[in-house]
């Protein structure tokens, strides 16, 4: 069996607003659009994904929060409705998701061998989190590939952002080994915003773009610092300053997704493809991708 490989890594933020703005059949609320810079970037990355040969999407999500180890989805299908607990007015999504349980189990096993506390999630009533659904919908609206969701262990809460960085990196190495052994071609998804301070009020029409802006300028400056490092292909440096970024911008990187993905990809020293940056209810959101194949790697924006 040939070795498996990671064929693309995607930074895919999950404000439910972008799904709401797309008006897919699965989502009950209807919008007049909004957040185009982010959505059009997503649409373009989704088109690139269509040109790539892969078997499964593996996603690390901040909205399946576990304190007792790292958990993996462990049943072949989940079909239900996801209602966002924070923005139920804009996200009530009927989903039908296929899971690559075989891949999920290999990753869990490898993580466990690396000393990480793990658990398979095998309760059929479990609701898949809206982070997984939003990022996967935007990257693959046809839902024609199986996924694996990995929970985010909250090391940043229990210890510090530094400990989170170390443990997420260890999980990334374990997942990379598992993917190699599986013989599968895998797309990784790190599902989160960058800076993450929200406005605590919402305009009557959530998609009123005349009201949308970053929470404050220092959040923006930090976000741009990260984008620059991504463009320059300095992912090791970026991950090294991530604890400080996370603390200063209360960033959603606190869950460990970006560290996990970059570690699994060996801390790329090539430029990231930048697809779009926009604020959503004050938070900073970037769509980006890391393409290990130098032939297909592009300068997008």
């Amino acid at each position, binding site marked *: 069996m040939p070795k498996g490989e990671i064929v693309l890594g995607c930074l895919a933020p999950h404000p439910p607003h972008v799904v709401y703005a797309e008006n897919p059949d699965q989502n009950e609320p209807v919008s007049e659009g909004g957040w185009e810079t982010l959505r059009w970037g997503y649409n373009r990355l989704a088109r690139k994904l269509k040109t790539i040969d892969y078997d499964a999407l593996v996603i690390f999500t901040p909205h*399946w*929060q*576990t*304190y*007792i*180890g790292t*958990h993996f989805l462990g049943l072949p299908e989940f079909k*239900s*409705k996801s*209602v966002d*607990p*924070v*923005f*139920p*007015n804009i996200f*009530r999504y009927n989903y039908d998701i296929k899971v690559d349980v075989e891949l999920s189990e290999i990753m869990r096993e490898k993580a466990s061998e690396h000393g990480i*506390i793990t*658990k398979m*999630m*095998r*309760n059929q*009533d*479990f*609701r898949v989190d809206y982070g997984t659904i939003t990022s996967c919908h935007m990257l693959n609206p046809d839902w024609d590939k199986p996924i694996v969701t990995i*929970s985010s*262990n*909250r090391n940043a*809460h*229990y210890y510090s952002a530094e400990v989170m960085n170390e443990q997420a990196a260890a999980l990334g190495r374990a997942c990379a080994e598992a993917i190699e052994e599986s013989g599968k071609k895998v797309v990784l998804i790190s599902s989160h915003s960058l800076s993450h301070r*929200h406005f*605590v*009020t*919402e305009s009557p029409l959530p998609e009123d773009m005349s009201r949308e802006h970053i929470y404050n300028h220092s959040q923006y400056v930090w976000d741009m610092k990260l984008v620059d490092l991504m463009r320059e292909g300095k992912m090791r440096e970026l991950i090294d300053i991530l604890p400080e970024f996370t603390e200063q911008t209360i960033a959603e990187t606190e869950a460990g997704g970006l560290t996990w993905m970059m570690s699994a990809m060996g801390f790329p020293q090539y430029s990231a493809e930048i697809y779009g940056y926009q604020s959503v*209810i004050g938070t900073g959101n970037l769509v980006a991708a890391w393409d290990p194949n130098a032939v297909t790697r592009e300068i997008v924006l």
Partner: protein
Amino acid sequence: MEESDILFGIYCPPHPQPLLSPEASEGYAKLRQAYDTCRERIENSDADLIIVYSTTWPSIIGHQIQAHPEPEWVHVDDDFHYLGSMPYKFKMDVDFAECLRDSAKERGLHSRTIAYEGFPIDTGSVVALKLLNPDNRIPACIVSSNMYANRAETIVLGKSIRDALAKQGKKAIAVVVSSLSNRMFTEHIDPTEDRIHSPKDDEWNRKILEFFADGRLEDLSQLSREIHGQIRVQKVVAYKPAWWMAATMGQHNNYHGEVLAYEALHGSGGAVVTLTPSSGSFGDKEFDEDDVEYYHGDRDVLDKGML
């Protein structure tokens, strides 16, 4: 003494073991028993509704209030999914929810009711309502805990609940769903070997329970920032349950307190406590924290300091 609109208050833990696996350890069974005692007391009271403030329902857009008349779903906990599912069907007091939303707005808070099929009611609220009010004998109201809110907003939220109860002439049971110390073990454990995560957490929990037993609710409210620093994992900006409970029930120490159980829940401090308004007081201390009646937004501390 003027009769309170809150007949009594309950402080109880959010984790699902007392509901799903009370037989797994002696401690879980004791917590379950304590819930059962509270359930009986609610049944024997003439309360019109149960108001739940759950630390496991965070919100961002102000405070959210559950207003679906009969929310129904099968809930599964993020960590403890292997203990089983929690099917629920509750009865909400929609009139009260709407009145509370308006009362909160009158006091300057951003608040909204939510009524959506399939809305994910949080583990803490599901556990509390299933154990305390299993047959939906009386309706309930669940309010969220805003993750950015600090003391002023939380106190004002409590006061707006008092306003709403007064407007509607209703008697309620106030339920806070929260751990004491909230650090859990980061590995899976044998439930029979469950214990409080550290002696420090245990010592602080016992100190808090001493205050509860003495009925010193306002003293606890005043101690909240210290409690947050000492024994709370820093997931949110502050330890808010005692602020909410004091503002909702009355900011004083005139309570009869009873600690019905105190046990470990995967390392966290799980206590079931009741507080009943009484006439005797432990005596009010000299409080450091200001009282606040209306919420006027965040104070621009830096702006004000500039010449």
